[in-house]
């Protein structure tokens, strides 16, 4: 969506209308999952399917980060044997997936949310408690 508008217009128009918080879903325990329930404030902004797809992908990425499997056990055992000193020089699997998540959120913002005057905040900036969606009043950004 190529829009030609000056910076001044953006500055005046990007006023925050509201913030929506998607809370954690604890039905499967303490693993990091977010609720896929569609918040009512976003009803006239974004498609419900689109939103649920975003949250589901996020959930699957976090599940991948916290997955218990051969590679995570190997990493854990190796760390234990080296008295956890490898954490000082090696990036953990979780951190790698977090970078992937940050990229995913940036892409989603670029392609889907920003054109609709919404902004997703990476949950890691909120302590993995909520997905914060900022809703902007954007009369001239249009849809």
């Amino acid at each position, binding site marked *: *969506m*190529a*829009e*030609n*508008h*000056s*910076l001044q217009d*953006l*500055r005046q128009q*990007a*006023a*925050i*209308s*509201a*913030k929506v*918080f998607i809370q*954690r879903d*604890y*039905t*499967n*325990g*303490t693993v990091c999952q977010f609720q896929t329930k569609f918040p009512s404030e976003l009803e006239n902004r974004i498609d419900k399917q689109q939103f649920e797809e975003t949250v589901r992908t996020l959930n699957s990425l976090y599940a991948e*980060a*916290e*997955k*218990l499997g051969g590679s*995570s*056990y190997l*990493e*854990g*055992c190796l*760390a*234990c044997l080296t*008295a*956890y*000193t490898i*954490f000082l020089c090696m990036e*953990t*699997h*979780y*951190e790698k997936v*977090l970078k992937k998540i940050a990229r995913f959120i*940036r892409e989603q*913002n*670029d392609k889907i949310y*920003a054109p609709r005057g919404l*902004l997703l*905040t990476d949950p*890691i*900036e*909120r*302590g*993995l*408690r*909520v997905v*914060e969606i*900022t809703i*902007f*009043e954007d009369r001239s*950004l249009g849809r």
Partner: protein
Amino acid sequence: MNNCEYQQIDPQALSGRTPTPALPPPPAVIRGEERLKARKKWEVFPGKNRFYCGGRIIVSRQSGVLPLTIGLILVTTGLFFVFDCPFLVKHLTVFIPAIGGGLFVFVVISLLHTSFTDPGILPRATPDEAADIERQIDNSGSSSYRPPPRTKEVMINQQVVKLKYCFTCKMFRPPRTSHCSLCDNCVERFDHHCPWVGNCVGKRNYRFFYTFIVSLSFLTAFIFGCVATHLALRAQGGRGLMFALQESPARYPFTTEFWSILGLSGFHTYLVASNLTTNEDIKGSWSGKSGSEDTSNPYSYNSIITNCCSILCGPMPPSLIDRQGFVPVETATQTSSTEMEVPMLAAKETNVCAQGTIDLLETASRSPCPQTGKPQAVVTSCPDANPAVTINPALISDPAAMPSLTCGGRHLSHTTSPPDEPRQPHQHHNRHHKTRTKKSHSSKRAALHVSSLSPPTSPGPGLTGTQHQGRGSFIALP
């Protein structure tokens, strides 16, 4: 901005004085403010923690007896190397000091990891989040005179779990999270606050703690065995056991550490195998004591191997408190935050429209300092935007059990020193914590438990191991 300072420097006095020009402005430009350096988030962290090495090392402000722990380990191992090793190397094998040295290094590294790692602290809710939660609570509660309940029930693996609201952190605590009043933080998968390591033991450092106590058991067992062998060999070769005892210096009291450490390792092995925390075990959350219906641990994988592997070898979760990040610049300014600060980008932005939109939106949405608790201009048209949570005194009777007890009643003598920020609600919370301490049901159980433990000022349970029943750590129950 820096012009005044340069003009004031007297060129004739340059030889005697070293002028200190102001630091260049940080990445974000500050309008009309005198601040010269953006502060890192660890510098404004609201909990009772201390940071070293630029925020990389985190310890509790109440470091407990960590120096004593390190001292005991060093002294015991030192005496072993000085008095037992030469004899044993001569009479047995040269591997003895090698094994001892390896174990010692492992113990010290695990201890330092436990003490200096973020245990899984949850950052406090931002003002917008807190306002949103307040709104939800008000909407869900009845309109009667009774205040709405500050608990939320969720279904976890077909088990009903109650989530409590934390007044200090202004959020509903995730499952297995507890607020440690010594550190003034909510910690995920909170086990206990251990004064011996001077830090909380939680999700991120439990494996280090477990490794520490297990390796310490091995070390003390090894030293115990070597000392016994040494005595036996001397007694055989010399004039009997009594003479051998007299010859060696009086370091035998230290060997009683072995029994309490062994007991503690055994207890934590049981906890690991059943995927429980010390906190849950003491409160009897899943053993059915607190309720009449069948309760089973919903977090357990029902397999000892899986439980052990998930806790000790599972993926290492990241630190959520972002110590190294910079505090957003909007916290410094009191001006309206709806205007963006993009002075330098104007020339490039028209070409990179989408990216510019994102940047501007992000700058606008970044909620200012979450610790101030003051309503920020960011949320201008948000209804009920009053992040300063009003405390209803009637809520004191809420059985949200947030007491914290340590062996010597340390919590009750805990200072009410005001936090860094002049937040009235925060100080109010601390007082509420203490009044709830006296009323809470679990405090009575903990008191019964605590009374059997020795006070913190004594030389430590290691030396009076028999009283301890294997629980060498003081338990703080937030």
